[in-house]
Every structure is written in C-alpha cells, then in structure tokens.
C-alpha cells in the first residue's frame, strides 16, 4: 500500500446531490442494487415467476370446469386478469420485507452517512419491484396464451389493460413500504402479506364472479379496488366481464375506478412512506 489513499484538500469533490440529476442517479443506483439482490437469490422471484404459472394451471384445469360465468364466456379468458392482479398484489409483500430487512441491517446507516438523496432508498426499492412486476405481467401473458387465453381487443387496449394493473400494484408497493417501515422485523413485515394482501386479492372478482357470493360479501368484493382493476382489464382486453351487470359504481366504471384508486393510494401512501422513513431516521 504505497500509492496515495486520500488526498486533501479533496481533489474530486462529489457533485451536489440535491439536483434532480443526483436524485435520479441515486435512485437508479439503488434500483440496480435491488435487482442484483434478486439475481443473487432467484427464489425471491418465485412469487412472480413460478406462482403465476402454478395459479394459472391450477385454476384453469382444476377449478375452471366447475365455474360458470354469468353471461357466458370461457373461464380461461375471464381468469387471466384475475391471475395477473392476484400475483401482482401478493408480490408487494416483497417490498415490505425488503425494506424492513434494509432497516434492520447496518446498511441503512452507511446510506445515511453518504451525501445521497435519502428517498432513493424508497424510490429505488419500489422501482425495482415495478420492474419485477413487469416481468410477472409478461410471464402471465405468455402462460395465458399457452393455456388458451385470447384477447379480443386492439393492441393499445391490451397494453392499456396491463399498464392499469401495473399502476395499481405500484401504488400498493407504497402501502407495503409504509408497512415495512413500521414493522419490527422482516418476519412481521411478511405477515402483512397473509393478513392484508391475501384477503384483498381473493375477496374480489379476481378468481370467481361476485354474483354467487352472499350479499354482504358481494358488496365488499364489488367495492374492493382489486375487483375494479380486474374488471377494467377484462373490459380493455375484450374478455368476458360479468361484473358489467353489477350496479355498484366501480363495476359500472371500472377503468375510472381503477385509476382513482391507484392515484389516491399513491397520493396518500407515498408521502406517508416518506414521512415514516424520515421518522425512522431520527435518533
């Protein structure tokens, strides 16, 4: 070790981190870090790779024959939007667990002593999760085509359907971020998935039409944002959408309802997550 380790006064002083460029490059660095994590432990991805395949096969071949759609149509065409929503909604658990893990390891202290845009920790995490969600959407689409799903709509309309579901799941990652920031351990953050995400995904029209549910449950399901998102995707894809005959407002206007839900959740959860993050940083 003979070469100079440090020079003083600082030769190449870091650029200002307060600029928009600095914030973006910090976010990108954090996003890449989270993507590297996934490449190291590919099983982390099982919820967006293996799970969609399993659910699709399970529902199409096992339950599909027993489910009759009000108004007719093939179950596989109905199911695909539900499979996509189910997988994306439950995968947001990864955001909560990942963030909680970061907070409980020493790494966060290192970040805090760097001249970085601190919110990059949050934005980079949700951005990486959005990218894996895109991968999930691709897998669901391909598996769907293999098992016989067909969309009767224009390409922009089909893409729009996917984007709508992705937007909704992105907004949910910010709720998951709030949970991760407030949980005592990565394990308790994981329980968020079972307590909140599974009922949210299943008490909806994702897998089965709500028409056969008991009245009170149907009311809950029809107002569940997941139902609006599934109905919106079905209508954009030209797939059977029995919810169109339900009088609840979100079922009559699923696209508008999905957008409103997503934007309202984002508008509330993102600033809340930033607030919780700042609060966690005060010592």
């Amino acid at each position, binding site marked *: 070790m003979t070469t100079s*380790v440090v020079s*003083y006064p600082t030769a190449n002083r870091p650029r200002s981190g307060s600029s928009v460029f600095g914030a973006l490059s910090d976010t990108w660095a954090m996003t890449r870090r989270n993507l590297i994590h996934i490449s190291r432990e590919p099983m982390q991805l099982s919820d967006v790779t293996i799970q969609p395949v399993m659910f699709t096969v399970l529902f199409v071949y096992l339950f599909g024959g027993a489910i009759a759609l009000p108004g007719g149509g093939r179950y596989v065409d109905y199911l695909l939007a539900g499979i996509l929503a189910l997988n994306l909604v439950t995968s947001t658990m990864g955001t909560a667990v990942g963030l909680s893990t970061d907070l409980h390891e020493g790494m966060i*202290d290192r970040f805090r002593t*760097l*001249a970085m845009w601190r919110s990059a920790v949050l934005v980079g995490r949700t951005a990486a999760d959005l990218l894996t969600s895109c991968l999930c959407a691709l897998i669901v689409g391909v598996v769907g085509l293999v098992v016989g799903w067909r969309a009767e709509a224009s390409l922009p309309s089909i893409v729009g359907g996917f984007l709508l579901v992705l937007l909704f799941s992105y907004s949910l990652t910010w709720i998951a971020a709030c949970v991760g920031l407030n949980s005592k351990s990565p394990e308790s953050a994981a329980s968020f998935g079972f307590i909140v995400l599974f009922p949210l995904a299943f008490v909806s029209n994702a897998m089965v039409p709500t028409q056969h549910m008991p009245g009170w449950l149907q009311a809950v399901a029809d107002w569940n944002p997941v139902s609006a998102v599934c109905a919106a995707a079905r209508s954009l894809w030209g797939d059977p959408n029995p919810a169109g005959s339900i009088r609840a407002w979100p079922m009559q206007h699923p696209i508008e309802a999905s957008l409103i839900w997503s934007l309202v959740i984002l508008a509330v959860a993102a600033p809340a997550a930033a607030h919780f993050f700042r609060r966690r940083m005060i010592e």
Partner: protein
Amino acid sequence: MVAELMIEAEGLTKRYGETEALAGVDFSVEKGTILGLLGPNGAGKTTAVRILTTLAHPDSGRASVAGIDVLKHPAEVRRCIGVAAQDATLDPLLTGRQNLTLVGELSDLGRVASRARATELLEQFELTEAADRVLKGYSGGMRRRLDLAASLMTRPPVLFLDEPTTGLDPTSRQHVWDAIRELLVEGVTVLLTTQYLDEADALAHRIVVVDRGRVIADGTPIELKQASRSARLHVTLTAPHPRAVEAITPLVAGRVHVSDNGRRLSAGVDASSGLATAVVRALDAAGVLVDNIEVRQPSLDDVFFSLTGGHIEEDEPQGGADGSRQSDVAEEGVVETAPASAPRGQGDGRQQLEEARP
C-alpha cells in the same frame, strides 16, 4: 500557528430513554492527526461518533466537522466524511466491487469515477482477488478492510472509524492499523474509537478516555502514562537476602513487596533516569546478587484502570511474565502489545496488568 480543528465536540449530551449515553462530552481533533476515543463498552463512544456523523441528534451541545456545524448543515458534513461503523455496513449480497461502486455512485462520484476508485482501493487493501466475490464469503478481516475502503471512496478529509479492529485476529488487525497509518501521510484527520489500549497507544496522537458518558482523561499517550505515575520496580535476586529490602527502601515509594520466599521484590517508584543503576548499586553495596531488574513504565492499561476505577488485584505477575520479559536495563515506556482482548475482561485482560496503583 494554531492548528486547524477538523472535529469539535462541545458539551454533547444524549439520552436514550433512561440511559445517559453522553453526559457532556468535549473534545477536538487537529487536522492531520488521529484521536483515539477510548473507553469500555457502553461508555458513549459510538454515540459520540453517531452524532458527529449526522446519524444522531444530541440533546444539547454543539459539534462541527471540517468547520461545518453538524446540526445545522448535516448534508454538507456528509460530503466531508468517511465512516466505517462498528457493524459492517455493507451489502452482503453484493460483491466487494459492487459495494464500493454503489457507495461511490450514491456519493455522486459518477459511474466511471466510482469504478476507477473502487479498483484502486481494492488493490490498496489487497482485496483484488476477492473483488468479484459476494461479501458473504469474506472473512471478518476482509470485511473490515472493505468497510474502510468504502469509507475512503470519496477521499474524505475526515474519517470516523468505530472500533475498526474489534473481533479481528492479530494479522488482520495489523493490516488495518497499517492502512490507518497510511492515511496520516495524506493529511487525513481520523477519529478512532477503540476498547483496546494498545490500539489507541499504537495509532493515536491524542487519547480521550470516556467512561459512563464523560471524558475522564485527555492527552497524549505519554502524558496519560506520566500522569498516573505508577511505574513499578521488579527485582529478582539470585537468593533471598536479609538486607535486600532495607537496601532498596530509600529508592522506592512506599512499601517493598516480597514474594517467592524473598527472591522477588517489587515496589512502586517515581520513574527517574538512572533508577535501575542506583538500585543495582545499592544492592551490590549490601552484598546482594541480582538476577534480573526491571522498571516498568505504566502501560495504558494501568492508566485506564486507574482512571475508570477498574478492578485490580494485588497480585504478582504470573510466573511466565517475568521470565519471558527478562531485561537488564530499565525500560522506557514499555507498552504491552496485548492480544485482542477487552480491557475489562476478567481473564486475559488482566494478565498484562501489574499492580497499577501508585
């Protein structure tokens, strides 16, 4: 010329619930020097570092780094500091190189510059071979070196090292020490916390001893040792002699302690030049044959224990201690290079101690 102060802490206090982590701590570090913040576990060392590195807010007091107020301009302070915290704060799933590059990019060095700097540091810390391995497979010493490298990515003028060698084997420890000494050549200012007296003695220009959230001593290693005035004379006679104690009593302070059936004598002394010669002459004049004589300067262990009120037993050193350290001349400033053991440890920590009381 007044030296520039790169780190200043004034009256820092901090409570965590019921625990008073800092109860008014003052110290400062001159540019281009190493300050050793020395104290047992829970003394408040880490809290002080967390405040100075913008991780924690003090309840009261003032702190500045590189002339910048830590409380008013934390973002500016972060541009001037490198931090290697006590627990390795690196990403276990990234490779060594990826970790360094990430730190560089987050510090807005830019991607190209970050990569170049990472390669440079990996080489300097002899981590090139392991550079592209995931951190999980690194040894403790390699992690610490990488942590140190990460803290140097932006070439910061001020460096904080929180217990950089805790838990390392002696070789890795020496490695980290060498790396820290290298920094001095470059004019970097370092605040180093440690539980190890020999580490503070080996590296620091000044030592601030903290205990229970307070500064209990502040000075150069030599000043601290002199202040304790606890030098000790050890004489081993060829055979017990009735006039030996009488002969050396005028030369020592206090009572002469006799052991090993009268063969070994020890006593506290005011270390002065020529003392060993005077003792040998006095014994010779009394017809006493001497096998071994040693004047031991207080080690920092002695100083530390006398300051913190550490528990010391009046005990002759273990048989091997004298035998293995035979010397016929009075040693100036003998400093133990202790194994990596906690100074408060009831076991090996005490083996280096030899009656620290004046």
